């Protein structure tokens, strides 16, 4: 019987590039920037890495297909590099690969990498992408904001809430992330905004205004993982271990079956339950100290608070407006600014989230440091609300003797 991943793998070191419109940087530059930090943090030689997983989503944008780009950029000693892609959960998928390799005993030390170079084509926004030979014939020509905006009207209708109330909570979500990003030196958008600014912003896709949408950014993030025993032998005392890695892809229900109400993310609920079980969490609101969720759009973060079990059904609007997820709230969310302000280089985002949890758990978060957190959650939603891949990971502090 499977025993789960809890505490079998520790993070030896992590790195994250500065996110943003990195006109100055090539994909190689971003990878080297993140790796230099991680390898120094790990305190090992590069050649100790025995296998690597590279997460890239938009290969159209120049990072290229296959595992080669990572092997070439880091001049790895011909160790296996596997390229993975699972929509916006790509970075978390790379982490899964590396963590499972270590847990399986196939490698002592493995590298998980996520990188995306979105700003090299002169095209604003995420690239248009074919949905395949059949789906293009019938699926709407949607954009990410338009696809996620669907949650807004359906959520409001489902809970009988005026859109104005939902919009105010959405504005609070974005305002909070901007406040947090001010103290997040590597974040893409580090300016403050007001609630009124968010509410008055031009409409992108009803009900989402400009400030309800995350940034399109370049960036890279990575993790070097090993067993707790090896980490200890390398001199690590307090370390961050993996408590749970859950993944749940849609199987068609949301897009094709009447049971989905349009106002929640079904796969998140499934992945969250699996992750809580694997990590041994019975009450996430009390046990989890911080979270980095997939706030590609403010409405996504809003419904996720319910899907992840932090707010009761229909209560997210009130909890958000009460400040429950602010940096000084009960369960701080997006302490680094989130996708909204730290930025969203798709393949790197899952690992960027893990980086923030790791940084906070080790007490290295500087001005935005929370008071001694011990358990953090990351969540990705790849795809669109009615067809997606959800990933929920839990990382925890494992105190040394």
């Amino acid at each position, binding site marked *: 019987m499977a025993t789960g991943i809890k505490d079998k793998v520790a993070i030896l070191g992590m790195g994250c590039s500065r996110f943003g419109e990195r006109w100055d940087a090539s994909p190689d530059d971003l990878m080297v920037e993140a790796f230099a930090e991680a390898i120094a943090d790990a305190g090992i030689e590069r050649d100790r890495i025995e296998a690597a997983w590279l997460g890239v989503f938009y290969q159209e944008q120049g990072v290229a297909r296959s595992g080669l780009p990572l092997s070439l950029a880091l001049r790895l000693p011909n160790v296996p590099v596997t390229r993975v892609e699972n929509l916006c959960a790509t970075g978390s998928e790379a982490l899964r690969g590396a963590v499972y390799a270590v847990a399986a005993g196939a490698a002592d030390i493995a590298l998980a990498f996520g990188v995306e170079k979105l700003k090299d084509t002169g095209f604003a926004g995420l690239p248009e992408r074919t949905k395949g030979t059949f789906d293009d014939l019938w699926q709407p020509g949607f954009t990410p904001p338009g696809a996620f905006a*669907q949650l807004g009207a359906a959520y409001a209708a489902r809970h009988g809430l005026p859109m104005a109330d939902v919009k105010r909570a959405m504005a609070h979500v974005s305002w909070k992330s901007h406040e947090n990003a001010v103290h997040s030196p590597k974040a893409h958008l580090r300016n403050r905004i007001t609630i009124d600014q968010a509410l008055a912003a031009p409409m992108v*896709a009803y009900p989402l205004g400009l400030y309800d949408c995350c940034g399109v950014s370049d960036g890279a993030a990575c993790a070097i993982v090993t067993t707790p025993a090896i980490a200890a032998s390398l001199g690590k005392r307090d370390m961050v271990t993996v408590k749970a890695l859950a993944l749940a892809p849609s199987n068609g229900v949301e897009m094709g079956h009447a049971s989905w109400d349009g106002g929640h993310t079904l796969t998140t609920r499934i992945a969250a339950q699996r992750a809580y079980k694997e990590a041994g969490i019975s009450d996430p609101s009390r046990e989890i100290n911080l979270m980095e969720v997939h706030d590609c759009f403010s409405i996504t973060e809003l419904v996720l608070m319910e899907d992840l079990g932090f707010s009761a059904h229909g209560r997210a609007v009130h909890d958000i407006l009460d400040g429950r997820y602010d940096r000084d709230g009960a369960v701080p969310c997006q302490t680094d600014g989130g996708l909204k302000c730290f930025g969203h280089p798709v393949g790197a985002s899952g690992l960027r989230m893990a980086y923030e949890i790791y940084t906070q758990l080790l007490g290295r978060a500087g001005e935005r440091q929370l008071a001694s957190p011990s358990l953090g959650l990351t969540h990705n939603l790849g795809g669109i609300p009615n067809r997606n891949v959800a990933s929920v990971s839990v990382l925890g502090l494992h105190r040394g003797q």
Partner: protein
Amino acid sequence: MNAFGILQFGAYLPRLRLERSAIAEATGWAAGLRGGKAKGARSYCAWDEDSLTMAVEAARDCLSGRDRGEVAALTFASTTHPFADRNNAGVVADALDLRPALRTLDSAGHQRAGVSAMLDAVRTARSGAGTTLVVAAESRAAKPASEQESRFGHGAAAVLIGTGPDLAAEWIGDATLRADFVDHFRTAEAETDYAYEERWVRDEGYLALMPQTIKAALGAIESAVVKHLVVQGPQRFATAVAKASGIAATAVIDDLHAECGDTGVAHPLLLLGAALERAQAGDIVVVASFGQGCDAIVLRATGRKASQGRGCAGAVASGVPNREYLRFLSNSGVVAIDWGMRAERDNRTAQPAAWRRHRDVTAFVGGRCRKCDTVQYPLARACVNPACREFDTQVPEPLAEKAGRIKTFTEDWLAVTRSPPHVYGNVELEGGGNVFIEFTDTRPGESSVGLPVRFVFRVKDYDVLRGFHRYFWKAVPVRN
């Protein structure tokens, strides 16, 4: 002897109606004396409509409440078929999910293409070869500031021709006169017409050719008993033809210039619909078509309603006047708006996949699970019902005529569309099923969760690199 004739009638006019005063306002500086007649409005295609999509909508209206299995042949008449070498009638037949053993023919090349097809259809019926659906649609382009720009309209009409106890109009007679009279022409290479002096067209064309053809069609019937006369052409020509034919001026059916304009090949069929809507049982109706000669048809109304759907009156009433001359030019392809980098997406159609799933897409046929009765789109190998998930249990389930309600939606100002915002969302189907689909003909602010919608056949994507475009169904709000 069996009676033959018109079983049913259907019509479609685009919702968009451009007020002619807006054309005059925009082009008056250039049009000079030609800019005079600025009354009423003309119909024009939405960005995702063409002759073919209008033909499908008119045909659906024509087939309202009928068993589509009775249709043995389909003729699609137009001078603006979207494809020069692809069976346009075949696409219409596919959209209507008609039987595979269906004779499909495109009738084209002149303004009589619609009425001539009706003459053939009645001969087909008499020969025992079954019922023909004749659908005519037209979306002619015109040069800015031209007389045609203001006079033309876009639209479609359909008639079902056959035999049976439920005829709406009995076919009494017809006559044809061919004459290579060039009142206007459009070469195969040209986008727009070249037209000659109206007075010559009236005197040597309409008045010289039409009355004799009408007389031949009437045979023993006195022209004075004709109660309704349709003449394909401007109202003043129709009035002159009536007078020359000995038909009362009050019989002349209004040319709908004020409501939609001249819809070309579709127009005599559309006006026939108007005539049948007002005809009493026993009324004699004459339809005279003009284009390199004349076709004339004599019908006797039976008293049965020709239209079981929106009909001509409903099509006319569906219009919403607007003054967006630049939108009209954009939709007509005269002006190329910059739709931005997102519009550069390659919309190449993967024909092997499109052919494999053509019934799913063109006819909008999904699946119904035989085990759990769940309706789903698209049909898949395994049932989507989470409580079922059985393999290979689904049978085809037509969805196009189902009603639906909006479950989720957005109005997306970022996505590519030639009519922002791009509106799309999830629609819950009556009787089960959920489909993620584009909306069309929807104003910003009009959509809401729970709003009833129906489906219409439209252009899904343009492939500007290859000149191809593909069709699919879209949701529109149900309007009374």
